[in-house]
């Protein structure tokens, strides 16, 4: 990472980059953490409808102090707003939306994504102290598309795009695209296909930070 000829993207830039690829009319669930930022970069006039596991469609941005209502939260338990046209429903209906294949897109973070689309994002080891899965397995298995938004490597430089996941799996073969601070990568039958890299980055330099073979389109 000492190569100064390219600039890695900030978290906001990553969210902004992914948001650009969400077209009007999609129903989208954003995972906790970095994926939640994506909503900030979808302009109001582009009507994208955000879903939250706890029973909301049409979720809006964080409330102003006057709008704030402790009874209106998202799956990350942050206070949110509801846009005109929004709706509430109970948990079984909310997960029928997820598991019934009604969401166009889910964006999650991950510890690892394998070249066959396997995702590991819920537990760091099989003997994890108190495992907590939430809706990650339902979203991974149920949404029409699963995109992952994450740093390209761990904090100590280990690749997060790998041949085979080493952490406990969330779902098999579920991820179709990965947005990192370095690149946009499609997951296909051929493995990882690099669609885009940050300016100045070479395929060789990207490959050096990736745990599985990278391919170019075509």
């Amino acid at each position, binding site marked *: 990472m000492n190569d100064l000829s390219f600039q890695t993207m900030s978290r906001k830039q990553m969210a902004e980059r992914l948001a650009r690829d969400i077209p009007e009319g999609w129903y989208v669930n954003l995972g906790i953490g970095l994926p939640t930022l994506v909503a900030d970069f979808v302009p109001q006039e582009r009507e994208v409808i955000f879903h*939250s*596991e*706890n*029973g*909301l469609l049409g979720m809006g941005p964080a409330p102003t102090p006057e709008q*704030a*209502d*402790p*009874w*209106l*939260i998202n*799956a990350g*338990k942050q*206070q949110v707003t*509801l846009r005109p046209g929004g709706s*509430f*429903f*109970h*948990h*079984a209906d*909310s*997960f029928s939306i*997820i*598991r019934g294949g009604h969401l166009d897109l889910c964006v999650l973070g991950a510890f690892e994504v394998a070249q066959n689309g396997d995702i590991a994002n819920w*537990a760091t080891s*099989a003997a994890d*102290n*108190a*495992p*907590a*899965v*939430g*809706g*990650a*397995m*339902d979203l991974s*298995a*149920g949404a029409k598309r699963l995109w992952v938004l994450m740093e390209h490597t761990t904090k100590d430089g280990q690749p997060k795009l790998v041949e085979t996941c080493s952490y*406990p*799996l*969330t*779902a*098999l073969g579920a991820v179709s695209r990965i947005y990192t601070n370095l690149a946009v990568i499609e997951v296909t039958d051929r493995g990882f296909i690099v669609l885009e890299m940050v300016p100045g980055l070479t395929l060789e330099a990207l490959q050096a930070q990736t745990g599985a073979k990278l391919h170019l389109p075509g």
Partner: protein
Amino acid sequence: MINKVVRDMAEAMAGVQDGSTVLVGGFGSVGQPDALIDGLIEHGAKELTVVANNAGAGRIGLARLLELRRVRKIICSYPRSAGSVVFEELFRNHEIELEVVPQGTLAERLRAAGAGIPAFFTPTGYGTLLAKGKQTAEFNGKPCVLELALKADVALVQAELADRWGNLTFRLSGRNFNPVMATAADLTIVQANRIVDLGGIPPETVVTPGIFVNRVIEVPVDGASVQEKAA
């Protein structure tokens, strides 16, 4: 005259047995029936299996029920959350059994119980640790896991409005697990912010029809507890 409104908390909890499976509504603190949990603590039932999305926070409500060692097992999708100190301590000391269930599988197991469906197949969790030991089968090329309905003895539910027949509405995102849990227990006990006259809830806005409800107690949500939720 049908009147499901009870006079006090003791009447609301009457007959809840040791060893019961108890569903607790809410998502985090929103829509969580705190007064009923306190009532259950006061009632004294122990050796409970509790089903809730989270495992409580701080040292009040669900966390206090755990801290008093009344819960043998908890079935949760997300036990570890900000402030789940009591649960984590019990878990570390092997003083509580934990069953982690994907959130949608949890909701669907409850829905199935309420709908008389003993088991169902779902792709969620296939090939993961949470499917270990479970029967699998393939449908339309998709491998699936067999999950069992989750029927309970008691459901504790928080509602916004209720009438004496047990019809319910819910406040904003306080709906969450409450309506589905109301269908899945032999005894569904509701704390409602306000009890209104029969007909006071327009029929097309009823979320949970009274047939799923056995007992109702009025517990106004005061400003202080709303502030607490916000904190």
